[in-house]
C-alpha cells in the first residue's frame, strides 16, 4: 500500500479510538449503576476534550494535505453530511463541555442532566461519521457525474487543475442521500461498531459485573463487521480472513476483556486504547488502499489516484508527522497526567478525609 495512504490511517484510527472512548463513557454515565465506574467515566470525559478537539483538527488537515482532489468528493457528495455534522458537533461540544464545567463546580445533578442530553448527539455524530466512512469505502450514495474512465484518466495524468481551469463549473460527483444513509452496509456496520463500543467500555473500565455482556458484544461486533464486509466490502473481508494476525488480534481482544475484568491487569486502559487503534489501522491496511469498492466493480479505485502532488506531500509529511507526535504523545500524556491522574488523586483524598 502507498505509504501516504497508510500514513492517513494514523489520524483516522486515532480519532476513531478516542471518539469510541468518549462515546462509550458519555452513553454509560446516565445508565451505569455502579458509582465507582461512573466517577472514572466523568474524569475520562473531562480529560478528553483536548484530545478530541486536536484529533479532529489533525484528521481534517491530514485529509487536506494528503488527498487534495478528495475535495471534489467532500464538496459535491459529502457536503450535506459534513455540514450537518458541524451542527451536531456544536451541540455535542457544548453539552459535554458544560457537563464537565458543572462537574468541576461540584454540581453533579446538573452534569448528569447535561451528559444525558449529550447522548443523542454523541450517537448522531457517530452515525454520521460511520455513514461518511462507509460511503467513501463502499461508494454508496456517491454518484459519478462523469464516466469513470474520464475521471481516472484525468487523475492519473494529474490534469484535474487543467480541467477545472477550462471548465470552472466542473462537477465530478453527486450525492444520493437515500442510498448513502439507508444502505444495509451502513446500518449493519454501525451496529457492529456500537457493539464494539460496548465491549470497549466494559474492558477499558474493567466492569467485571458486565463481563458476559462484554463478551457477547464483542462476538456480535465481530460477526456484524465480518458479515457486512463479506457482503459489501469484500477487499477488507478477504484480506482479514486470510490473515493469521487478524485472528490472533480477535483472540487478544477476548483475553484482554477477561484480564481487565478479573485480573486487574496493569495498563488495561492503555492496552484497550492501543488494540482499538491497532484494529482501526488493520482495517485501513485491509482496504488495500481502495475506495468506492462496491460501486465500481470489481475492487473500486485506488485512493493513490487522489494523492496531492509529490512535492507538497513530501514537505507536508514531515510536519504532519511532528503534529502526530504532539497529538498522540504530548497532548495525550498531558491530558492523562494533568486531568485524569489529578482527578483520581482528588477523589482518593476526598474519600480518605
Amino acid at each position, binding site marked *: 500500500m502507498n505509504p501516504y495512504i497508510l500514513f492517513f490511517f494514523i489520524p483516522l484510527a486515532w480519532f476513531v479510538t478516542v471518539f469510541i472512548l468518549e462515546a462509550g463513557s458519555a452513553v454509560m454515565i446516565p445508565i451505569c449503576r455502579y458509582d465507582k465506574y461512573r466517577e472514572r467515566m466523568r474524569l475520562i470525559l473531562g480529560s478528553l*476534550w*483536548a484530545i478530541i*478537539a*486536536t484529533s*479532529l*483538527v*489533525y484528521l*481534517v*488537515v491530514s485529509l*487536506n*494535505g494528503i*488527498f*487534495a*482532489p478528495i*475535495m*471534489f468528493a*467532500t*464538496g*459535491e457528495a*459529502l*457536503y*450535506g453530511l*459534513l*455540514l*450537518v*455534522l*458541524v*451542527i451536531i*458537533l*456544536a*451541540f455535542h461540544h457544548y453539552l459535554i*463541555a*458544560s457537563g464537565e*464545567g458543572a462537574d468541576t463546580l461540584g454540581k453533579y445533578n446538573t452534569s448528569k442532566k447535561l451528559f444525558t442530553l449529550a447522548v443523542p448527539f454523541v450517537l448522531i455524530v457517530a452515525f454520521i461519521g460511520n455513514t461518511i466512512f462507509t460511503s467513501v469505502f463502499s461508494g454508496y450514495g456517491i454518484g459519478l457525474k462523469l464516466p469513470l474512465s474520464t475521471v481516472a484518466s484525468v487523475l492519473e495524468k*494529474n490534469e484535474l*487543475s*487543467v*480541467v*477545472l*481551469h*477550462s471548465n*470552472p*463549473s466542473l462537477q465530478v460527483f453527486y450525492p444520493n442521500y437515500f442510498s448513502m444513509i439507508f444502505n444495509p452496509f451502513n446500518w449493519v456496520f454501525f451496529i457492529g461498531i456500537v457493539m464494539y463500543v460496548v465491549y470497549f467500555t466494559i474492558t477499558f473500565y474493567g466492569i467485571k459485573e458486565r463481563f458476559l455482556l462484554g463478551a457477547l458484544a464483542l462476538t456480535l461486533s465481530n460477526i456484524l463487521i465480518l458479515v457486512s464486509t463479506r457482503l459489501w466490502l469484500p477487499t477488507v473481508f478477504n484480506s482479514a480472513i486470510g490473515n493469521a494476525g487478524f485472528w490472533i488480534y480477535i483472540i487478544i481482544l477476548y483475553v484482554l476483556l477477561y484480564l481487565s475484568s478479573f485480573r486487574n491487569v496493569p495498563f488495561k486502559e492503555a492496552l484497550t486504547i492501543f488494540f482499538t487503534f491497532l484494529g482501526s489501522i488493520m482495517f485501513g491496511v485491509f482496504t488495500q488502499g481502495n475506495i468506492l469498492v462496491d460501486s465500481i466493480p470489481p475492487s473500486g479505485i485506488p485512493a493513490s489516484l487522489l494523492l*496531492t*502532488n509529490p*512535492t*507538497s506531500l513530501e*514537505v*507536508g509529511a514531515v*510536519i504532519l508527522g*511532528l*503534529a502526530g507526535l*504532539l*497529538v498522540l504523545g*504530548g*497532548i495525550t500524556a*498531558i491530558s492523562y497526567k*494533568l*486531568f485524569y491522574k*489529578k482527578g483520581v488523586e482528588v477523589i482518593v483524598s476526598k474519600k480518605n478525609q
Partner: protein
Amino acid sequence: MSLFVFDRVLAAYTMGVHVLFTYWAISLPFFIVTAEYLGYRRNDPYYLALAKRFSIVMAVLFAVGSATGAAIAVEFITVWYKWMYIVNEVDILPFEIEVLAFFTEVIFLALYLYGWDKMGKTAHMIIGLLIGLGSTGSAILIILVNSWMNTPTGFNVIEFANSGVLTDINPLATLWPPIASAEVPMGVAGAWFVGFGSLAGYFAFRMLFKRGLTHDEVEYYNRGLKLSIFLAALDAIFLAWAGDNAGKTLYAIQPLKLATLEGLMYTTRGAPLVIGPISIPAGLSILVSWPPNPNALVLGYSSFVQSDWDPIWWLAHNAYDIHAILGIIGALVFWVLALGIYFKSSFLNIEKKLTQYMAFIAGWLQLIAWESGWIAAEVGRQPFIIWGPMFQTSAGLYAIQAAMLTSEAYNNSPDVLPIGITIMIVLAIAVAGTLYMLKRLFEGKEISQDIIALRR
C-alpha cells in the same frame, strides 16, 4: 438570495464569529502573564486574582474558538472545495504548521491552568507566554494563507492562470507571500489592540455600571483597567506602524486593492486622503510613498479594466473607513489615557468617570473596527478568490489575470442554503451560550474570596 451571495455570506458570518474569539486567544495570554508578573513583583493579590480569573475565561473562549474554527474548516472543504483543492495542492504547508502551533497552544494552556501553585513562578509565566506564542503563531500562519490568496507564490502562477497547469510547486515559497509583510503585522497588532481595548472596555463597564462595588472589586477593576490601557497604548505604537506599512505595501504590490479600499475612482497625483466627511489634500499620496511625496501618483479604478473592478467596492471602502476611523480614535484615546494615568493627571485619573467612559466607549468600538477591517480586507479582494499577475493591456490599462475567481469557487448546490442557515443559527446560540456559561462559572465566586485565598 442567490447561492453565490449566500455561500459568501455563510463564510463571512462563520469567519466573523470565529475572529470574535481569536483576538482574545491572541491577546489574553499576554494580559494574564503581565498581571501575574506584576502580582509577584509587587506582592499584589489583585493582580494575581486578575491572572487567575482570566485564565478560566481564556480556557472557555479557547474551547469555543476551536469549535468555530472547526466549523469554518469544514465549510472550506464543502462550500469552497474548488478553492481548497488548489490550496491543498500548493499552499497547504501554512495550514499544516498551524496545526503544530495550535497543538502547542493546547499543551501549554493545559499546563498553565493546572500549573498554578504547582510549579515555579518563572516557569509558570514562561508557559503562559508560550500559549501566547502558540496562538499568535496560529494567527500568523492563517494570515499567510490569506496573503497567498492576495499574492500567490510557490508555483508558476502565470502558467496556472493561463492553462490551469500546476508547475514549479515549492511549498516553502508559500511561507511568506509578498503581501504578508503588510497583512501579518496588521493582523497581529490589530488582534492585540482589540483584545486589550475590549478588556479595558470590560473593566470600565464594570466600574461604571456595577452597583455597590466592594473595596476589593474597586481595587481589582482599577488594576485591570490600568493594565489593559497601558498594553493597548503600547500596542497602538506597533499598530500605527503596521497601518502605515500596510498602505505603502498595498501601493507597491496591490494598487487595485488600495484603490478599492480608498474608493479612488480616478488615477491622481497628489491624491487626497478621504476618511468619511474629512478630506486631507495629498494625504493619500504622502502616506503611501516613501520618502513622503505629496505628488505621488496613485492608481485609481480609471487605470484598470472595468471587469477587474470590485463589484461591491463601496462595501469594502466603507468598511475600511469605519475600521480606520475607529482604529485611529482608539489609538489616540488609549495613548491619552495611558499618559494621563502615568503622569498621575488629576483630569484623567483612573477613578474619574471621564476616563472610564472613554475606555468603555473606545474599547468596545474596537470590536467594530476589527470586524470592519476584516470585511474590508476580504471584500477588497473581489472578484478574485486567488489573485493573479498584473499586466498592461494594449489599451494602456492594467488588468489582473485571475488565478481563480470567487464566482468559480463556490458550491452551487441548493442544499447548502437550509443547512447554512441552520449553522448560522447554531453559531449565534453558541456565542450566547458561551456568555451564559461564563456568567454561571463566576456566579457566587466573588473577587473577595479569591483575594482572601491569595493572601493566605
